């Protein structure tokens, strides 16, 4: 059986496009951090990418089916880690998101929970493959997703918690969610809006949402990040200001330009053409992933890949949507493009699992 698993079946095309996006990211990080105290971040990003590639290859060697089989252990560990964050986590910028490990490494469990959740959903619906999904199943899936989500919300980290929802929604959709169930879910969600707004959200989270609704009310205060990002994108025009020539980027008007707002700097310096070009790269990657889902050896594999697709699409939608002013400021990075180890490692590990599934497509 093992001899059928070969790197010949590795999705090299997918990897090519992923690396193209990474390359654009490294260049844009260089430009965005030029003359700031973060200068040199692009080099670190290259190391993260190399680390990510290693992780990806390592991941592709494992049997995803074994991972799926044992996901309940990972899930338990993940939930424990999230509880640990709340108890012994490091507080930074008003939120406890990290655990300080020996050696000065900061570990952010909420990022890895995504991966666990993808595998968990795959297993859950894989086991339901022989019958119709009923309402109890849906409720079970929702509870499984809700536990880590609530723990992350307690940190508080609304942005990351939100990234769990597309995984659950995608799983429910593929798992045979019926139309009537969908209506009930939407109704419950709608009923929850008011209590969540009143009791569930922190002030700064409400702040961001109200600012998003009306960013021009106070451009110097609340809406500053959003409006500066919009100005940067708009000023880019069709062809852009040129590499390292955007005034919004270079003169530090774009907030956190190397991470959350990297796409704004890209849009300013490379223009509409560059921005749409990068979106096309993402599109190719996503389509390629869906093609792999189609050829997955089993239902669990397809679920895993589609879970990855859902997370990536959600990140792109929320991040680019935020940059162009369609979405509130949430602090969700753009996969592969934004600077940051956790995001890069997560994405490459997720791709590793996809490769793993693809390489086993002929395995019986």
């Amino acid at each position, binding site marked *: 059986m093992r001899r059928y698993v070969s790197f010949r079946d590795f999705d090299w095309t997918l990897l090519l496009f992923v690396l193209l996006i990474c390359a654009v990211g490294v260049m844009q990080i260089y430009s965005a951090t030029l003359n700031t105290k973060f200068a040199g971040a692009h080099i670190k990003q290259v190391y993260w990418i190399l680390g990510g590639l290693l992780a990806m290859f390592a991941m592709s060697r494992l049997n995803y089916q074994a991972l799926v089989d044992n996901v309940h252990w990972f899930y338990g560990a993940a939930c424990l880690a999230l509880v640990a964050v709340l108890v012994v986590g490091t507080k930074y910028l008003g939120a406890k998101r990290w655990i300080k490990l020996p050696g000065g490494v900061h570990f952010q469990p909420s990022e890895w929970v995504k991966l666990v959740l993808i595998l968990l959903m795959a297993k859950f619906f894989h086991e339901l493959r022989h019958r119709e999904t009923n309402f109890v199943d849906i409720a079970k899936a929702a509870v499984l997703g809700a536990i880590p989500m609530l723990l992350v919300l307690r940190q508080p980290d609304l942005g990351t918690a939100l990234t769990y929802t597309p995984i659950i929604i995608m799983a429910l*959709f593929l798992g045979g969610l019926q139309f009537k169930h969908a209506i009930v879910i939407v109704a419950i969600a709608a009923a929850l809006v008011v209590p969540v707004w009143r009791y569930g959200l922190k002030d700064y989270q409400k702040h961001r949402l109200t600012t998003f609704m009306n960013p021009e009310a106070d451009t110097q205060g609340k809406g500053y990040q959003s409006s500066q990002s919009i100005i*940067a994108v708009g000023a880019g*025009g069709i062809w852009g200001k040129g590499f390292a020539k955007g005034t*919004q980027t270079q003169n530090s008007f774009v907030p956190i330009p190397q991470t959350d707002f990297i796409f704004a700097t890209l849009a300013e310096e490379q223009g509409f053409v560059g921005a749409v070009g990068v979106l096309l790269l993402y*599109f190719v990657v996503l389509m390629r992933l869906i093609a792999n889902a189609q050829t997955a050896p089993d*239902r669990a594999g397809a679920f895993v890949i*589609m879970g990855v697709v859902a997370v990536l699409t959600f990140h792109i939608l929320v991040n680019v949507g935020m940059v162009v*002013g369609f979405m509130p400021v949430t602090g969700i990075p753009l996969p592969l493009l934004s600077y940051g180890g956790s995001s890069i490692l997560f994405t490459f590990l997720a791709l590793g699992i996809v490769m793993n599934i693809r390489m086993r497509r002929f395995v019986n």
Partner: protein
Amino acid sequence: MLGRDEKIPPSKLSIAQYAIVATFLVLCVGLWRLQVSGNEKYQAQAEGNSIREVDVLAPRGQILDREGRKIVDNYPSFTAFVMRDRVKDLEPDVDAIAAGLNVPASQLRERLRKIASRPQSEPLILKDDLTPADVAFIESHRNELPELETITEHRRLYPTNGFMAHVIGYVSEISEETLNSDACFDCRSGDMVGQSGIEKMYNDYLKGKNGKRRVEVNNRGKVLRELGEDAFTAGKNLKLTIDLDLQIAAEEAMEGKNGSIIAMDPNSGEILAMVSRPTFDPNQFAVRISHDDWNKLITDPAKPLFNKAIQAQLAPGSVFKIIMSVAGMQEGIAQNLHVNCGGGKNFYGRFFKCWISAKHGAHGDVAIEKGIYQSCDVFFYTLGEKLGIGRIAKYAQGFGLGQKTGIDLPQEATGVMPSEEWKIKNFKQKWYAGETISVSIGQGAVATTPVQLMRAISAIATGGNLRRPHLVSYDSLPAPYNDKYREALARYPEKGHFDINPQNLDVITGAMANVPGPLGTAPSAHLEGIEFAGKTGSAQTISNEARKTLKGAEYKDNAWFVGFAPRRNPEIVVAVLFEGGEHGQFAARLASQVIKAYVEKKRRTPTHVAQSPTAPIEISALWSAPDADSESGERLAGGRFNIHAGLPKRRITSAPGVN
């Protein structure tokens, strides 16, 4: 073990694909909306963010005297400031900065605290007018204290010790009201504008046009790059009619006294010197006057900001008798009037004293000449009685009393020349004949400014030619300023004429020439070899009613003198108000100092015919010297000498403190 089983239906994957396509289309629309449709708008906003226009302040024009000597100049001054949003960075370094800039740390902290709520982009001034040591401190700490910034400004350098302060005026930062008024369409906050004197009157001419520097800044307002500069246009230099040599003489004469001296060319109306005391230091305003200093200036009972030359409205006293004399002679009354002065006389049932009675004397038989040089009150009481207030007012008004002269300085006072109509209009009361008697000697309701009184005497001295006194000749200004300023004062005619019979004039000026002489009221003001005429006056400072309310305070009489030289075809007229000077003679002495300076300067000035030689001239001489041994008691002696010709005094090249 999981096995291969039912796959996900391809339709669901297609739906996922469509959903992704839709998502990407929405994002592309968002990009299109901003980058293609909204590009222009956001481009402008991005520029507004990054590109700042910084004013490059234009230096104001210099103010020069009639010979081009500097009275007011500029000097480069450095100001230390921090941008409001960098105050946080500054806080730990307050003590170091306070020590380096030599300001108390507590004061610095207080300022930082005060501006905590001001807009982000506002600069906070830490210290104005840095000393070279301060600048060196900032330069050498660029790296440790990057938030500390400096700007250079051109500040006004005014003469020291309040020299000519009232004429010059001062500049200060534009006020909120001026900034918001309609008249001020191109003003900007922080502009320095003239607030009084010449600085205010000729602000437009002096101010120049600020340049603009386009710079690229980052989100903290730090300048990253220079993008270009529109050079400023410096303000134009303004030449006054003031003669520094005479101004210095007048300032010296007035030193330590209160009052005013004005000197004018009676033929043109050019003001040659103008002094008011007490004075103030306009340099205080040039930087940033402290609240305490300002309060001290405006609450000082001596009113140092008040230009007495044009704003003091006081009884002219006996100087008014010259107007009386002209009126009397022109009306044909004074020529034949002979009065016996016994120290006073009764009019309308009241006894009016002559000043001589205070010295236990009387003037005896008095005609017009003696009336003038001895300033006999009884003579003018009688003349006034005969003329009546109507004719007195007609002549006084004809010579401009009770009217603004139209001098090119702001806030000139009007003064009062009473008449029957004036009294009815202002007091709804009939004129009493007794009031005419007081007015005849320049008391009662008559109030004139020194410049007004000077113009009246100047007109009489030149045979009736009234001139608008001025500090700037409009013909010397380039268009359009010449017409603009001329128009601004158009309701004050530059020239006027009031006919005086030359014979009458000769009698009056002849008598006036005796005033600073052995027969006159100001013998100590006599100038040997200079034909100098004038009239003294000693006037009550305040009305009797005011004296009652200010009981306990002692108010000495004001001494006046208005004189001119030479007596015929005068070249200079000088008015002196010496407050608390008690007797006109003391004012006359001050006037004589200025006239002496004028004549001496004239005599020193080399003519074209005889250029003063620069090299010493060698001469030989032969003379007899006393010699006890010789028979004649004398002996013949001889020798060679070098004579150093040229100017005896060091020439003045600029106002004091302005080099």
